[in-house]
């Protein structure tokens, strides 16, 4: 393979990796938005807490001397459990009392919650960067593919696609998924038909937070370090991805994440890595100007 083609494919896979992480987190935003019409600004912090819980349990298990794959799986499960619990608690404390409040009140409550959680992690753990166990280092080399595809990228992309497939199944074919879609369409009608809205909303928060935790453990293992601030920029990017795909649309969030990740990777690879974030936001602005409802979003005609 000529060098330029190998470089192109390498960038493509790095973009796909990044994009699949954005997609996982964007799903959390889009599901909550679809059901409550609320931007869950604390979602990035849930992701960050997932990374910290993963770090703590991965260290604990590695001290206990478990094999690498077991450490990885157990740490990820622990991160999902606690992130889900945080997501649930945040909803109960900061959003549930505000269901009938003016539109901006939950947003401010979310910003407050986000400040609170960051400070909490600084106090409970530390404000410095913490090393994260690099669990992907022991993976075997990919032979001929090794020129343009890291083994860690392969693991991340596969995991994310499996998780996404599971999520689509859950949303499309299970009772919970049907209840979620019903509530997103018309909450009052769904409640009249016997759907327990509070329970479904809690489920949505738990599910979205657990997805964010999967993304957090995957990317932290690859990056090798985390701190209390990682949630902010990832949160903004993932929200951008959700809007890009059409907020409220599950498939849109996945697609938006991939488009955003690829845009960033190609901009960084061919233009300038200093401005990769600028390109990401430019793509968002351009898409919204020409297709204001996002890539897969439905266009709502407002009736009087």
């Amino acid at each position, binding site marked *: 393979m000529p060098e330029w083609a190998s470089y192109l494919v390498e960038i493509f896979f790095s973009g796909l990796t990044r994009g699949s992480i954005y997609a996982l987190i964007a799903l959390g935003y889009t599901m909550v938005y679809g059901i409550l019409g609320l931007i869950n600004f604390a979602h990035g912090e849930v992701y960050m807490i997932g990374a910290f819980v993963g770090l703590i349990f991965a260290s604990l298990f590695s001290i206990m001397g478990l094999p690498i794959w077991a450490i990885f799986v157990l740490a990820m499960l622990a991160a999902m459990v606690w992130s889900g619990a945080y997501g649930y608690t945040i909803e109960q404390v900061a959003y549930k009392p505000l269901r009938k409040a003016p539109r901006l009140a939950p947003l401010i409550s979310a910003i407050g919650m986000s400040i609170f959680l960051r*400070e909490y992690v600084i106090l409970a753990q530390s404000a410095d960067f913490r090393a994260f166990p690099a669990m992907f280092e022991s993976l075997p080399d990919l032979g001929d593919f090794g020129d343009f595809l890291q083994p860690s990228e392969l693991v991340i992309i596969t995991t994310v696609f499996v998780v996404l497939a599971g999520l689509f199944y859950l949303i499309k074919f299970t009772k919970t998924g049907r209840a979620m879609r019903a509530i997103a369409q018309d909450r009052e009608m769904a409640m009249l038909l016997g759907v327990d809205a509070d329970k479904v909303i809690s489920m949505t928060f738990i599910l979205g937070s657990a997805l964010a935790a999967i993304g957090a453990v995957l990317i932290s293992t690859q990056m090798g370090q985390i701190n209390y601030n990682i949630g902010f920029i990832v949160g903004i990017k993932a929200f951008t991805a959700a809007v890009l795909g059409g907020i409220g649309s599950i498939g849109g969030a996945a697609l938006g994440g991939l488009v955003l990740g690829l845009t960033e990777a190609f901009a960084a690879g061919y233009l300038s890595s*200093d401005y990769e974030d600028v390109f990401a936001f430019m793509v968002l602005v351009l898409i*919204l100007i020409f297709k204001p409802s996002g890539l897969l979003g439905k266009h709502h005609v407002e009736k009087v």
Partner: protein
Amino acid sequence: MKTLWLRSAMIGLWFAFLTLPLVGFRTDFLEKTFEFRPWPLLGVFAVTSLFAFGWSFISSRPAEEKGLFEAFGPVSGVQQRLTSKPTLLVLLALMLVLPLVTSGYQTGILITALTYIVLGLGLNIVVGVAGLLDLGYVAFYAVGAYSYGLLSQQFDLGFWVVLPVAGVLAALLGILLGIPVLRLRGDYLAIVTLGFGEIIRLVLENWGEVTGGPSGISGIEKPSIPGVTLDFQQQNQFLYYLILGLAFLAIWVNHRLQNSRLGRSWLALREDEIAAEAMGINLTQTKLKAFALGAFWAGVVGVFFAAKSSFINPASFTFHESAIILSIVVLGGMGSIVGVVIAAVLLILLPEYLRFLQEYRMLIFGAVMVLMMVFRPEGLIKNPRPLYRIPKKDGPS
């Protein structure tokens, strides 16, 4: 009562479980150390149980006793008392005398608070009155600050020249941003403005040849009065009176706008865009005017900020700043001038005077924001909706 205790204990247990990994464990896999810390966990349990008890105790009381959170009194009453002439005169006198009797440090805090009052009033036009959710307001603030930094150093322009120029520049940028995003509604507008704010910050950070990159611009000239030399303390007092003047100007402009034709069309826009358009309001122009006027104030305050600190870098213009200004508007009560002023003073002075709590102060600050919204979602001062009564005609009916 007994079940209440049990419930609170359960909530405490839940929070102890939540905080178990982060508070209870500390590990370092490089050093192979593992530490279990039971005492902080017990603290979390105790604090959250008591808090849960207090919370359910308050919310379980019968409705007529619920006066605790209405302790601010009937809101319009607060507003009336605060805006009555004698109170305002006393406040004005107090504000004028304060820098002469307090230390330079206290004056500095007051200057910051006044800066945020003006910023809050500027954003209040966009978010509070016109209802356009702008999460990238800090971009205009940055444009003002950098305009002064660059114009004064490259072209040798003075503070008084740049002050209006930067305001106009920021307003133009507001219109420029406004034109493409006018079609977007609500939350889409929010994310585009957020993206715009980030773009401006990233450009400032990376365009090193012009903006100085992450290290910013230093040695910016302080404002001066021609022919007068000021020592350090007088300089500080002069800055104070300057921003006080700007704050009064901003309050006056906001107040005058409130009942103007433009102000009323903004309110109509906020309440219902389609109805407003049907009543003959030009949506494009009205929205652009809100954007431009809001951005103007941010630009002006940006110049003041650059002149005050004589050093600016992109780190001062992060999303966090936009979030604080937005919180001022919403905490104060959307569209209420008195509310914005009170909220700005509270939000800036609270972390300042919570310093004795040291590392816990920002934690408490975040918690207060959440609690404020839970108990008073419409903000401190609810802006009364304008009401017009048609005078009754005399005669038989």
